[in-house]
């Protein structure tokens, strides 16, 4: 089926920062993502649906696509290549905490030598001035000056050896927010700021990118050895501090971004968009409505969003569980022939 001209592609988007009951932690949406992928040729998803600390257990036909790229794809601004082996460049913050930096470098060695990831170059930058704040139950963020990040990416790309960029920086989060998140009381505090950094690179250079936090030595202890009472869904955060691993494994075969009309992964082949309950507020949803792509919202994936009052969107199918969503996808596939 994958060699035939028409592909059956589905997109499943699980936003990070809205406390989804499935996918609100790291990697805990992997199971549903892989199950959905088992009934289509390719499944497009956002990195944090499958990033799980040092692990990324997504199946081969899961396309790991940065959120801003997903938006551009649905707006028909870009298309994508089929997945292929990428050469990866890494941008690392040079922190005063040398243990943290050495741990990130050791992770790079590990994934190069054990998983066969082609990591071609590393660029160090001074720590960026970042901030996060909690507003109406959601984390917001700011990076005051992204110029050094863009300069490092430009240098990596100028070498001609790099197809995708992994970014790893330290994000300072108040311990009380981390503990509340680990107990299921707050959304993931890192997701939005991570997204800002990867959007910057992808917007400026049109390449796949993703971010992984570097933990300081003190944070490693907090995450690894003082979190045994955390929600089981956050367990991947507690058994490895080498977060860069999941990003390297994801970018390894991430589809490349192509000009509209030149890619093999086309919006015309997307037969459904699957979103958590009440997540009918995004650019992919808006353009799916426009292009009449069925949108399946899954009730069991609860989050901080309530239904939007006074709005009735068309072509929405509401199902109770991801199993129901799979049945719906199979029905659409049968209909598509």
């Amino acid at each position, binding site marked *: 089926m994958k060699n035939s001209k028409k592909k059956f592609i589905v997109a499943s988007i699980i936003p990070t920062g809205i406390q989804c009951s499935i996918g609100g932690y790291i990697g805990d949406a992997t199971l549903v993502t892989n199950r959905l992928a088992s009934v289509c040729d390719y499944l497009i998803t956002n990195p944090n649906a499958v990033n799980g600390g040092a692990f990324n257990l997504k199946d081969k036909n899961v396309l790991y696509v940065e959120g801003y790229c997903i*938006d551009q794809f649905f707006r028909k601004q870009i298309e994508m290549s089929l997945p292929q082996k990428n050469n990866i460049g890494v941008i690392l913050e040079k922190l005063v905490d040398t243990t943290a930096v050495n741990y990130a470098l050791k992770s790079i060695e590990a994934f190069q030598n054990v998983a066969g990831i082609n990591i071609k170059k590393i660029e160090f930058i001074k720590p960026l001035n970042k901030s996060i704040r909690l*507003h109406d139950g959601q984390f917001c963020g700011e*990076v005051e000056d992204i110029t050094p990040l863009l300069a490092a990416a430009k240098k990596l790309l100028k070498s001609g050896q790099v197809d995708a960029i992994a970014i790893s920086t330290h994000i300072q989060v108040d311990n009380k927010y981390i503990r509340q998140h680990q107990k299921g009381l707050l959304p993931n505090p890192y997701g*939005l700021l991570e997204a*800002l950094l990867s959007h910057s690179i992808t917007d400026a250079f049109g390449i796949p990118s993703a971010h992984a936090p570097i933990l300081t030595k003190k944070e490693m202890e907090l995450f690894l050895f003082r979190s045994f009472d955390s929600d089981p869904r956050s367990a991947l955060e507690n058994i490895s501090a080498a977060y860069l691993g999941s990003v390297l494994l994801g970018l390894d075969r991430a589809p490349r971004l192509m000009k509209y009309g030149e890619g093999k992964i086309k919006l015309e082949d997307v037969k459904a968009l699957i979103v958590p309950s009440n997540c009918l507020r995004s*650019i992919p949803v808006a353009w799916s409505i426009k292009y009449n792509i069925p949108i399946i919202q899954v009730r069991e994936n609860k989050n901080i969003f309530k239904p939007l*009052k006074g*709005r009735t969107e068309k072509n929405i199918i509401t199902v109770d569980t991801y199993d129901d969503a799979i049945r719906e996808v199979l029905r659409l596939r049968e209909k598509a022939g």
Partner: protein
Amino acid sequence: MKGIKTENISVPYKEEESLESIFSKADDLLMRDKKKPLRMVLLDVVNAEARLLVSFIYEK
């Protein structure tokens, strides 16, 4: 110098207006302020206003 941030913004909303139209209005509003829009999500709709969470690049 370029920065990037997320902020809440509001745009005028007409009953039953399409999501695409709301996002286009938000795009226009940001570009008028010389902010390059990246991602956005509709948070809620109250009477004649749509409130969004947007990420954008700004120049200092």
